[in-house]
């Protein structure tokens, strides 16, 4: 990006810029402030803060973090209040166009015009988007009445319109289940939930509450094989799938409906990250991060759903707290060494990077991905008497396949560091395992591997 000054030729700086004012960004901003960063700015594209939370009017948020069961708006409000009273600044209706490796952020807004911020550290918290119909290659017509579940949720809960009166939902992930319940309570007849896998996708409590309560038929191992209706949806053909997940046409039947909700996957929103040259992990769709949530570009951090899709907002908050504190520390270093080296890279951060080495964390058997993918090797720098938190390395992971009676293992160079029994594991429920850093041998080179094995 060419160098371009802010409005009226003035330079704009922030110690920490947070891109995204959802739960991840808000937590990161709060943590950055608590860790002493002076100027923390949250850049949010919508007219309100909270990210996806304002449209999540249901409960289920905050059980871990607050020990209370809150709705999305209530959870968001807690962090907005705290951020505001801590002195975090907000730019609303502001869309970031570009993030550079030398930590500049270009953004546009009807209120602030075209701004370029030079930052000590940047935290990416853009969340995720939904997989659309186009990516599914669903045969049939292109009528009105087909929505991704989140877009329907926005229309129903924020904009004040209903998509239709008779719905089918494709995908039994949490968003789909929640919308099945929501639509039913708004008087919509939900005809069926169709799930291609042989097991439901969402959290058990959502499966229970969202459609067992309303006796909505759930068709596992099925998919939608065709869309009907020229200008407005008239119905869908549903069919069981074979082992290759291909619909068995001979077993197809027609379900009339005027609304189809797609809940078929969330994809971390990393357009800005990719354009910046940040290394992405194909297994998560998000940036490769260290346990401090730092990406492959020094001084750029990431947290929340932009890193990988979480199930609980409480975990998003945890991520954000880590990223915010680490970013604040980074920003202090950047402030002390403002000299830009060759190619515009920050000499101060680069040298810091060189001193610290990172080890790799890899997904092993039956593990689809791990986050973080790297961890900072403090070596002898972690005092034995350090706080438990500093000694603990927390790894988040998802299994590739559901399994029962298994053992979660963290090993390095063939040696098992940690073993945990698990009765049930499901791809729809993220797990976490803690490893004592002091137990990690200090030789560089070998990766920590996380596996799920039979007992």
């Amino acid at each position, binding site marked *: 990006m060419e160098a371009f000054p*802010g*409005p*009226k030729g*003035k*330079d*704009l*700086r922030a110690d920490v810029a947070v891109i995204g004012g959802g739960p991840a960004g808000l937590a990161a901003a709060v943590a950055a402030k608590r860790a002493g960063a002076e100027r923390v*700015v949250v850049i949010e594209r919508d*007219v*309100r*803060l909270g990210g996806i939370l*304002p449209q999540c*009017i*249901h*409960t289920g948020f905050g059980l871990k973090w607050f020990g209370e*069961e809150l*709705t*999305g*708006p*209530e959870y968001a*409000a807690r962090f*907005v*209040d705290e951020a*505001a*009273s801590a*002195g*975090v*600044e*907000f*730019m*609303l209706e502001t869309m970031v166009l570009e993030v550079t490796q030398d930590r500049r952020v270009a953004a546009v807004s009807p*209120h*602030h*015009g075209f*701004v370029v911020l030079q930052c000590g550290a940047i935290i990416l918290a853009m969340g995720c988007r939904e997989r659309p119909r186009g990516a599914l290659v669903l045969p049939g017509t292109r009528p009105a009445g087909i929505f991704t579940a989140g877009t329907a949720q926005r229309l*129903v*809960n*924020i*904009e*004040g319109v209903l998509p239709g009166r008779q719905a089918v939902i494709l995908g039994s992930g949490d968003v789909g289940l929640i919308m099945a319940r929501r639509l*039913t*309570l*708004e*008087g919509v007849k939900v005809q069926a939930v169709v799930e291609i896998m042989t097991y439901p996708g969402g959290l*058990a*409590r959502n*499966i*229970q*509450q969202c459609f*067992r*309560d309303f006796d909505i038929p759930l068709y596992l191992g099925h998919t939608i094989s065709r869309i009907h209706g020229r200008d407005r949806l008239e119905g869908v053909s549903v069919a069981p799938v074979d082992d290759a997940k291909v619909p068995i046409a001979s077993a197809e039947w027609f379900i009339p409906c005027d609304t189809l909700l797609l809940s078929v996957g969330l994809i971390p929103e990393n357009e800005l990250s990719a354009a910046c040259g940040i290394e992405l992990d194909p297994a998560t769709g998000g940036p490769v991060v260290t346990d401090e949530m730092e990406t492959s570009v020094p001084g750029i951090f990431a947290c929340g759903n932009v890193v990988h899709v979480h199930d609980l907002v409480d975990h998003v908050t945890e991520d954000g707290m880590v990223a915010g504190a680490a970013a604040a520390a980074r920003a202090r270093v950047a402030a002390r060494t403002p000299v830009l080296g060759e190619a515009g890279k920050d000499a101060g951060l680069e040298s810091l990077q060189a001193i610290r080495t990172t080890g790799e964390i890899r997904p092993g058997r039956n593990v689809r991905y791990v986050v973080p993918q790297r961890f900072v090797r403090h070596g002898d720098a972690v005092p034995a008497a350090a706080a438990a938190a500093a000694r603990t390395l927390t790894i988040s992971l998802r299994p590739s396949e559901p399994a029962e009676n298994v053992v979660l293992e963290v090993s390095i160079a063939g040696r098992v560091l940690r073993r945990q029994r698990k*009765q*049930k594991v499901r791809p729809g*429920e993220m797990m976490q395992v803690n490893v004592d850093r002091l137990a990690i041998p200090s030789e560089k080179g070998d990766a920590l591997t996380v596996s799920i094995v039979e007992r």
Partner: protein
Amino acid sequence: MRGDSNEFTVTCVVCPVGCEVTVLDAVEVRGNKCDRGREYALLERYDPRRVLTFTVRTTCPDHPLLPVKTDRPIPKHLLLKTARLLAEECVSPPVKAGDVVVRDVLGTGADVVATSDLGGSCGDIDQMVSEPYNAGET
């Protein structure tokens, strides 16, 4: 979930284990690994309750809906009836999160409360935002 005759089976959601618990009658419960599971199953069988989260229309063109919830779980069989009742409601600003929108809804003892603020006057929503970013300063 409905078994034969009076048998009732439910997957407990209190903890991640997810026991399949069967209630045979008001006393006999099988499949639970702990007391919380037993309690959960009994309640689900004899007095299932849910918190209703919902939206209520407002007079604000820019913010046409206010999210609300019942402040405690209400009987499951009253969810749709409560929804229909709330569909007739309409609120005007200012509203603060926690304000009661409908008291003792359908005689359940539960109040329906706002879960978000609705600003001082329409078109000027209280965004809980402090001073906006000061773009003019270095």
